């Protein structure tokens, strides 16, 4: 079989930890065929039932929910002068310097200590979730909105449209994720939306590639050919057959990519290239880095990093769980079920 040497190559992403390659190639079993015919709601319900059985994934989801709640309720939120969220779980303003002497070790008043400017690290870590979580979700969301339609069009229309889109994807794939994001931030500058823009510009290509591949393989399936033979329209085939079957791997990839994006955003912050310096973002909080360690102020480094670690670990657990839940073969294949545990 001719193999396009560029397919499936490129940079290695943080992906699942199961046998995803094998799962993708596995022939459809009766269970997955049943799923393909089932109404979407039924599919979601069965997927959720499978997800719930994965204790690690549920724990990950709980941690993410908790971190999101803490971030939302860390400080009051005002929209146009109206307070929509009055709760303040963070004891201090995350941006306020000099709330205490600099470099106080953890204590009852300052559970995570204070940093060089006398800012409360605990408040900053709680509040910092807002940046990491929103950057992760928004950047992945927009990347999906760009990549999925482009990939679907490339796969379905084919011809020069496909060539144009996929050659652009190939070129972008040549740049390592972080290096390209750094270069884009260098050109367009710092700030929340510029950072999101850079992460989207780098991130959409993986969805385009994935969706194109899925669309190509689904279009060749017997049931699509049959639908076409009985006169179904392109729109009907796309909606009823192609999209529902192509969407599962996209959801898995997107979930896992939230982790990659959050890590990248934190790395940019650490390098001083993400948000404005001094922002209470987890990565930026680590940029003082080594100097504070040598001074013995370990808490400035340990707690924000722990927050990133916990979040990314949780999102990876959820992504694994979602993959196993959406891959119906996992239930029938003894090997894979054991792997999923």
């Amino acid at each position, binding site marked *: *079989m001719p*193999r396009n*040497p*560029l397919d499936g*190559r*490129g*940079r*290695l992403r*943080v992906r699942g*930890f*199961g*046998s995803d*390659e*094998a799962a993708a190639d596995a022939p459809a079993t009766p269970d997955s065929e049943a799923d393909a015919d089932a109404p979407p709601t039924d599919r979601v319900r069965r997927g959720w039932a499978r997800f719930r059985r994965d204790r690690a994934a549920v724990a990950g989801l709980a941690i993410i929910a908790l971190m999101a709640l803490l971030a939302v309720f860390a400080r009051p939120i005002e929209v146009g002068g109206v307070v929509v969220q009055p709760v303040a779980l963070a004891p201090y303003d995350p941006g306020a310097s000099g709330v205490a002497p600099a470099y106080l070790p953890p204590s009852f008043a300052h559970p995570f200590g204070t940093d060089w400017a006398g800012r409360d690290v605990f408040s900053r870590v709680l509040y910092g979730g807002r940046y990491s979580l929103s950057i992760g979700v928004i950047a992945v969301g927009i990347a999906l909105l760009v990549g999925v339609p482009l990939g679907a069009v490339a796969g379905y229309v084919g011809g020069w449209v496909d060539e144009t889109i996929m*050659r652009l994807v*190939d*070129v*972008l794939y*040549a*740049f*390592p*994720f*972080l*290096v*390209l994001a*750094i*270069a*884009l*931030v*260098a*050109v*367009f500058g710092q700030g929340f939306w510029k950072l999101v823009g850079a992460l989207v510009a780098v991130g959409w290509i993986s969805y385009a590639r994935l969706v194109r591949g899925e669309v190509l393989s689904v279009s060749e399936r017997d049931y699509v050919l049959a639908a076409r033979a009985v006169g179904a329209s392109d729109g009907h085939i796309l909606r009823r057959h192609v999209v529902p079957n192509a969407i599962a791997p996209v959801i898995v990839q997107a979930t896992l990519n939230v*982790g990659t994006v959050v*890590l990248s955003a*934190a*790395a940019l912050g*650490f*390098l*001083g*290239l993400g948000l404005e310096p001094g922002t209470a973002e987890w*990565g930026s909080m*680590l940029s003082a*880095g*080594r100097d504070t*360690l*040598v001074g*013995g102020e*370990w808490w400035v*480094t*340990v707690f924000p*990093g722990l927050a*990133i*670690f916990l979040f*990314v*670990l949780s999102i*990876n*657990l959820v992504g694994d769980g979602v993959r196993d839940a959406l891959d119906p073969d996992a239930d029938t294949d003894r*090997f894979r079920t*054991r*792997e999923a545990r």
Partner: protein
Amino acid sequence: MSLRRYVVRRTLLTLPILLGVSVLTFGLVKLLPGTPVDYVLQFQEATPELRASLRAQYHLDEPLWKQYLLWLNDVLHLDFGDRVVSDRSVSAAIAERLPETLVLGGAAFLIALLVGVPAGVVAAVRRGTLLDEGSRVVALAGIATPNFWLGLLLILVFGVHLDLVSVIPPVAPILAPESLAFLVLPAVTLGTASAALFTRLTRSAVTDQLRQEYVRTARAKGLTERTVIVKHVLRNSLVSVVTVAAVQVAFLLDGAVVIERVFSWPGLGRLLVRAILQRDFPVVQAVVLLVAVAVVVANLLADVLYAWLDPRITY
């Protein structure tokens, strides 16, 4: 198709990609506000004569396509112009930093392979046991740990508390003993995520191989389990591991950019970040281009290696 023809065809396929990469790298700097002259002058006042001579030097009075071709010609001769912050050439700066990054990346790669592959084999052979579970948890943690945080924690434990290693790079040649001692922490930090990926990949490859019929045959003819695993299963599994290993170049380069900052490692990544903060765009352009070319070449090697290692594949 013969292997040779495949290699030629695959190599030719990289040319349009390399062309696209060069256009993008060239265009990136064109998107900057201001012209290269402004950056060379650091937005200071200058005489019209100086401006005019700089404009001529950067071919700014030519049409864009001609600027690109002139730039490409220079680049193909490894001439990336002069640095903005000093009179040194960009090529000299890169030539000085490149070996540092290669040593760091190479060491990290070795660590990742030497840890990841055996761990993956053990996990696959002892599938479902506590050992397998443990390796999964460690690998998951390895992937989720921000590498710069891991580096800082290692400095905290081994550099500050235990005082085993120096926290600043020694002034010594790359391969001197004190330099190698300092290399340990950055290399471990950089290699951790790759080791985790290799573990999972090897495990899944070995698991797939263990289901093959030739394994049953090998066992049936009375080979010891050790021989079956090492001589048959591992060899076949390594095909996929080796090819992914080549693709790790991009992953390691990304990591190096961050970790070089953590350990003040004088490599390309540090040069890149510094150059961005100093708006030294010829350097940014050159490093980004170099990195992208390295990735394209690594992918090419990965595909060729794959074709060479697995004779069943026809193209």
